[in-house]
């Protein structure tokens, strides 16, 4: 399995760098969270710190968010949908390795490419901008990185669990769009969760969306206690287990319905 992962990762990294224009557009789309940052900076500029959030907090939050948006968001449901329609899913099924691993390495490979460009940019920006700073202990760094990785894994499983709906309907991508839209609000991507009404923030803490965005960012900003970090990991773990179960169930039942169209 290790050899297969290494070879698949190498191929998908190769796919990621195949087109310079596509890569540039990907990197540029990292700027979306920075637009949200611009809005909050205007608010702070006019009315002063909002709920204890200063300019440096927003800058650090959204700069980290820009990297996390690219490295933890999964678009596998749409890729899976396209593979079902085109017939490429059949080729994945013919291989003696579960398509789950093929899709996972596809996601990881593309993230590696983006990270190679984004991380050095973030490091340089932290050196140039005094407001962009992360003052963490090594353990907090470890927790933040682990939170991002587990959040990414959760997003992949969530996307793939939804993708299996594609065996029954051609609308899995649209359903996931609906779910993803809800997630964008509850993840902390649009606004830090502590700035949302208490009820919404309380719901967001137990939903799966915060795991890959708000949770690691709040660790990065040193805003969580040890107990809150532990709770965050527990929520992530429970959702990973739940979506893993749903994925396997959807996969087993869905395969019986697979029509192998498109070739």
């Amino acid at each position, binding site marked *: 399995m290790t*050899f*297969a992962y*290494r*070879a*698949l990762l*190498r*191929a998908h990294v*190769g*796919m990621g760098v*195949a*087109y310079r224009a596509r890569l540039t557009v990907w990197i540029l789309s990292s700027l979306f969270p920075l637009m949200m940052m611009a809005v909050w900076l205007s608010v702070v500029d006019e009315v002063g710190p909002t709920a204890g959030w200063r300019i440096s907090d927003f800058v650090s939050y959204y700069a980290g968010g820009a990297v996390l948006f690219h490295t933890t968001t999964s678009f596998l449901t749409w890729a899976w949908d396209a593979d079902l329609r085109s*017939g*490429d899913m*059949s*080729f994945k*099924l*013919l*291989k*003696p*390795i579960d398509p789950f691993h093929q899709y996972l390495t596809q996601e990881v490979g593309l993230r590696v490419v983006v990270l190679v460009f984004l991380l050095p940019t973030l490091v340089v920006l932290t050196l140039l901008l005094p407001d962009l700073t992360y003052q963490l202990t090594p353990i907090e760094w470890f927790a933040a990185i682990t939170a991002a990785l587990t959040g990414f894994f959760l997003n992949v499983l969530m996307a793939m669990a939804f993708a299996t709906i594609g065996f029954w309907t051609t609308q899995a991508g649209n359903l996931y769009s609906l779910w993803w839209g809800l997630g964008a609000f509850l993840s902390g991507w649009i606004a830090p969760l502590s700035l949302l009404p208490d009820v919404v923030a309380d719901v967001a803490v137990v939903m799966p969306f915060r795991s890959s965005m708000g949770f690691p960012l709040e660790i990065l900003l040193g805003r969580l206690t040890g107990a809150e970090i532990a709770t965050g990991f527990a929520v992530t773990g429970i959702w990973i287990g739940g979506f893993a179960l749903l994925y396997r169930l959807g996969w087993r039942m869905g*395969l*019986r*319905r*697979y*029509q*192998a169209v*498109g*070739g």
Partner: protein
Amino acid sequence: MARQNGDSAVVVEDLVKHFRVHRREAGVAAGVKSLLRRQYADVRAVDGVSFSIGRGEMVGFLGPNGAGKTTTLKCLSGLLYPTSGRATVMGYTPHERKTDFLRAFTLVMGQRNQLFWDLPAMETFLVNQAIYRIPQSEFGTTLAELVDLLGLGPYLDKPVRNLSLGERMRAELAAALLHRPAILFLDEPTLGLDVTGAAAVRSFLADYNVRTGATVLLTSHYMIDVTALTRRVIVIDQGQIRFDGDLQVLADKTAPHRVIKVTLSSPVDPVGLAEYGEVEATDGFTAVLRVPRSHTKDVAARMLAELPVEDIAIEEPPIEEVIRQVFASE
């Protein structure tokens, strides 16, 4: 109709695969109507098919579009779950998708390929080496053979998207055979290839069968593929098997005539030629006649005795015509 073989690589018993398909007429109104009320139809793609294929055998799988060939191949590859019936390939039940089963066969679909589109074909080969766990020495040897036999050398470092259809098909075959599968399911492997490319692929497949003893089930609309590679054919139409046996037997059974081609030293009018058989074409000096199979020798002997014959040849009717007649008679 099924031919049973004690050492069968593929056994299919009463295989059925039905699909439920959404149907709607063309036009906006029909589109809106179908939003409110869906209409479905059951398509009986494979409807009680039985056959077996011995190890090392090469079999042609023939039928018109929509006959059920590809659906059968997909059932045998484990892509489709049968509605009922049973199929085993090398002793495995395909839809159980056991890892050892997936390593034992390959499915080549002429209209699609498994290669990474934006990368050189070599990248797909390396991924397949890892996935199929091919030892380095075996990989090197097999790849060298495939590159040589398929003439892949100049294309290995070009992105797949920049290859011609023929080059891509050869690279696809190499990717599909690197793990030396014992069973090949080939669905239109020469589709879209030029004459040279198609001949190269045919020659390679025949050679692969001889060298490895692989079992091959081949579908093709190009009869030259079938006649060059297989002796046994299975003819399927509307999801049911119409014939399973020797290609020659099919020709004898379906086309009760042979073709006599004659070259004459002096012209003979068509009326004179018609005494020997049905005249298909003549320009006075050459003629093509259809003659009842049982009288062919007698007619040829009479022509040699009674006409100024320079050259005479007795041929089977073209296989395309035979197959056309099989489907026309249904």
